[in-house]
């Protein structure tokens, strides 16, 4: 076989048009990578560089489909195949050696990209083994395996089709695989409600989300479902190739073909059960629209629970999705017939048991659960087993983004969790603390606001935040900061002078409630949180805050919000309040015509009018009291109109 491969390599490089195409390909790839490398030297965004390099997947795919077709069909046209087929397993060895030759070329070309990626990695000096692995896996999946799929298609076309049909197929597949076809399912779904995304996704072997700013906690998409899909195609096509190039009587090859078919079926099944993925297309089941479409109907409710929770004991397993076995200790003053909980609707409940492991009847309606108590005594404990995922707040083998404000475990009462007017999630934060004891089984290092001992997280808090992926812990004096490993912090670290910063706002924002903030943990929000949560992803708990940035403004808002009960009705005022205090110049610099004519600034106009009319100090003071006063139930508009 070695001899055949050597000769095949020789043949490849001695065939003028193959050699020319190859050299042109190398040139294009390297010019692109070098230009991006130069860009990197200016911007130093390592994930951006990796993402841009993975865009080349489509170029690799097209090149290798074309080259493998031409390379394999060539000798068919040269009437060589008949004399080769007569030798013992000749056709088989001939094609397999050709495939191996092409695989060697893919390997070389994959290494080409990897060299650039690793060069960038070493320049960045982040020293993160998980990212070294991430680079490797991305290139393996998005470049190597995509190209391998390409050569399987090209070879199959060479074996079965004449040139015109083969080229037609190659062009058609390239269009179907490339992102330019995205408009077809979009139009069909948006315009006619026809969902062909599942069908289109079967050909979706290229990396998703490359047109998006990358999620630094998560990295680029290398979820298991993508491996499954690509392995499905490779196994299916290679089994077809094997059956075509080998004599039917060679049992071993037949067995290998059958094994490949079985593998492809298994991978397709696994692909269909993809679990938690991050795919930011317009597919109604994915990141962008899944919840938006659901909550656009009147499905949300708000109802206080007539019990509180003492503690959670959770056994969380995170692989393709989240599995949780949670034991909730309840605090009921009276015997209750029903217990209301909120749990994100895409977590499927397997069973609910009482303290003696007897099943409890329950009703699920979207995010809300009613658990019924059959006995005339307090339930005291409820055990719930469930599994599932959220397309936004992911939890899988690649990353974990489970902020405590998202009901990934049951929260007492019915709670609104989505503000459809702003298309963003509302943080759910209870006003008391509960005890947590969580064991997390995950391939990732998980960071939490809770105390940590190995895989166990425990302590008393309002909520439990779990984050994993490209995140690491840093201590700045007494402040613990969980920062995104791939993002650089500003040179001036505000955490080191946090007291000094907060002191400037003490009179306006903290007043009597000023406490020592140094005990708090700070989590750096990902872009998902900053774009999908209200308040731009700044969430404040008593023991930790989530903030996308360590700028003064973000930190101040993060710490100040701690004293402001979360109330959806007050969101508009809250936004103007913080914008005015923290970004005053920006706030007042909006052009007069914009302010007066643009509907978007309607509320801001009202707020400014009040400031001009009643004075800044007065309005700010009154607004702060309004925001902190839980008993004031007026909505934003009413408050601002009543302000005098």
């Amino acid at each position: 076989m070695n001899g055949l491969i050597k000769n095949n390599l020789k043949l490849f490089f001695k065939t003028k048009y193959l050699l020319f195409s190859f050299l042109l390909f190398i040139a294009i790839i390297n010019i692109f990578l070098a230009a991006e490398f130069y860009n990197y030297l200016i911007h130093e965004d390592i994930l951006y560089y990796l993402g841009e390099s993975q865009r080349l997947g489509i170029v690799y795919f097209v090149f290798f489909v074309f080259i493998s077709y031409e390379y394999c069909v060539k000798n068919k046209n040269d009437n060589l195949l008949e004399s080769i087929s007569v030798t013992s397993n000749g056709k088989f060895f001939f094609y397999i050696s050709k495939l191996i030759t092409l695989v060697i070329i893919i390997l070389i070309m994959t290494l080409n990209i990897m060299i650039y990626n690793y060069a960038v990695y070493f320049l960045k000096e982040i020293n993160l083994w998980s990212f070294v692995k991430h680079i490797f896996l991305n290139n393996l999946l998005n470049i190597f395996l995509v190209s391998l799929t390409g050569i399987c298609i090209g070879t199959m076309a060479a074996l079965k089709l004449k040139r015109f049909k083969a080229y037609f197929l190659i062009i058609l597949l390239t269009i179907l695989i490339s992102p330019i076809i995205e408009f077809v399912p979009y139009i069909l779904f948006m315009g006619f409600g026809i969902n062909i995304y599942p069908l289109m996704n079967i050909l979706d072997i290229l990396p998703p989300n490359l047109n998006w700013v990358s999620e630094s906690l998560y990295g680029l998409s290398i979820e298991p479902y993508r491996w499954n899909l690509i392995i499905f195609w490779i196994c299916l096509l290679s089994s077809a190739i094997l059956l075509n190039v080998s004599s039917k009587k060679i049992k071993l090859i037949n067995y290998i073909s059958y094994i490949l078919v079985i593998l492809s079926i298994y991978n397709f099944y696994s692909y269909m059960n993809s679990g938690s993925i991050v795919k930011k297309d317009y597919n109604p089941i994915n990141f962008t629209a899944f919840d938006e479409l659901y909550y656009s109907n009147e499905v949300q409710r708000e109802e206080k629970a007539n019990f509180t929770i003492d503690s959670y004991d959770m056994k969380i397993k995170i692989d393709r999705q989240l599995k949780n076995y949670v034991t909730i200790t309840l605090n009921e003053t009276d015997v209750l017939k029903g217990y209301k909980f909120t749990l994100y609707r895409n977590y499927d409940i397997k069973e609910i048991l009482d303290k003696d492991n007897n099943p409890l009847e329950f009703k699920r309606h979207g995010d809300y659960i009613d658990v019924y108590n059959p006995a005339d005594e307090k339930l005291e404990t409820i055990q719930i087993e469930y599994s599932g995922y959220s397309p936004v707040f992911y939890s899988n083998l690649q990353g974990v983004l489970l902020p405590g404000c998202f009901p990934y475990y049951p929260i007492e009462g019915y709670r609104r969790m989505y503000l459809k007017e702003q298309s963003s999630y509302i943080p759910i934060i209870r006003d008391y603390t509960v005890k947590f004891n969580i064991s997390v089984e995950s391939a990732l290092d998980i960071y939490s606001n809770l105390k940590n001992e190995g895989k166990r997280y425990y302590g008393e808090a309002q909520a439990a935040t779990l984050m994993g992926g490209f995140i690491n812990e840093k201590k700045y004096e007494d402040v613990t900061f969980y920062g995104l490993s791939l993002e650089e912090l500003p040179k001036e670290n505000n955490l080191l002078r946090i007291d000094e910063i907060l002191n400037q706002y003490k009179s306006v924002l903290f007043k009597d409630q000023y406490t020592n903030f140094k005990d708090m943990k700070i989590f750096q929000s990902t872009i998902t949180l900053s774009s999908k949560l209200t308040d731009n992803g700044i969430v404040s708990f008593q023991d930790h805050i989530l903030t996308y940035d360590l700028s003064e403004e973000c930190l101040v808002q993060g710490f100040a919000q701690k004293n402001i009960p979360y109330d959806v009705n007050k969101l508009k005022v809250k936004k103007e309040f913080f914008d005015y205090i923290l970004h005053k110049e920006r706030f007042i610099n909006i052009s007069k015509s914009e302010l007066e004519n643009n509907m978007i600034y309607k509320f801001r106009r009202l707020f400014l009018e009040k400031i001009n009319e009643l004075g800044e100090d007065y309005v700010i003071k009154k607004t702060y009291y309004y925001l902190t006063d839980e008993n004031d139930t007026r909505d934003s508009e009413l408050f601002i109109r009543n302000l005098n």
Partner: protein
Amino acid sequence: MLEVIKLHKSFKKKEVLKNVSLEFKNGIYGLLGPNGAGKTTLIRCMVNLYDLNSGSIEYCGSSINGNNDLLSNIGYLPQKFGLFKELTVYENLKYFCILKKIYKSRMDDEIKNCLISVNLEDRISHKVSSLSGGMIRRLGIAQAILGHPKIIIFDEPTAGLDPEERIRFKNIVAQINKDRIIIISTHIVEDVEASCNKIIIMNEGRVLKYGSSEEIKSEANGKVYEVEKNLNADEYWYVEKSFSRNEKTFMRILSNKKENLKSLEPTIEDGYMCIVKGI
């Protein structure tokens, strides 16, 4: 011994080989028949390119079908033959040596000897693209005889070759003839006339005659005549060819009726035509 036993082969509904039975011992066999007689199909069945519908092909008592050891004993030059044009003569033959699993240590000698046999030793380092059609055909013969196969099959080996190359081919066959079965499929009678020990005549998927050249010739005994062209043609006559002599045109005809005409000495071609045309 190579045996074809009651072989049937169909493509969809078209039966191409009908109950073909043949026996080959060491020697040179000519497989003669018109285009579409089933020669190439028979050969492709023999080299295991086609599956059989029924019957079998055996070599020394073992079925050849899917038997890799036996397949390595077959050298084959197909009707349409091509090589890697970008590689040299040596590299091409080396490629086949690897496919034929010839030991690395023996490869160079084997290649050299085969090239000497086909008179191409001086072209060993030339690119195939620089060779003439005849040379490529000879190189095809060289690849067929690589590894000393016990059976060598040539399918239309002289098609498109000039007379000099045809003579060269016959000489090569005469040279490599030892202890082997050589089967030459052709529709050109003169290719097999001198060199073949046995001739098989096929038509419409059947073997019509199996015998020596003398036996084939004898099929036309008393059936070959020469007549002037202006004579009224009899419906039983089969006109083989017309030719001119002394400003008169004559025809060479075959007839199974006793004619009162000038009788000629039969050739293999006459015998072949009598068999194929049923005269």
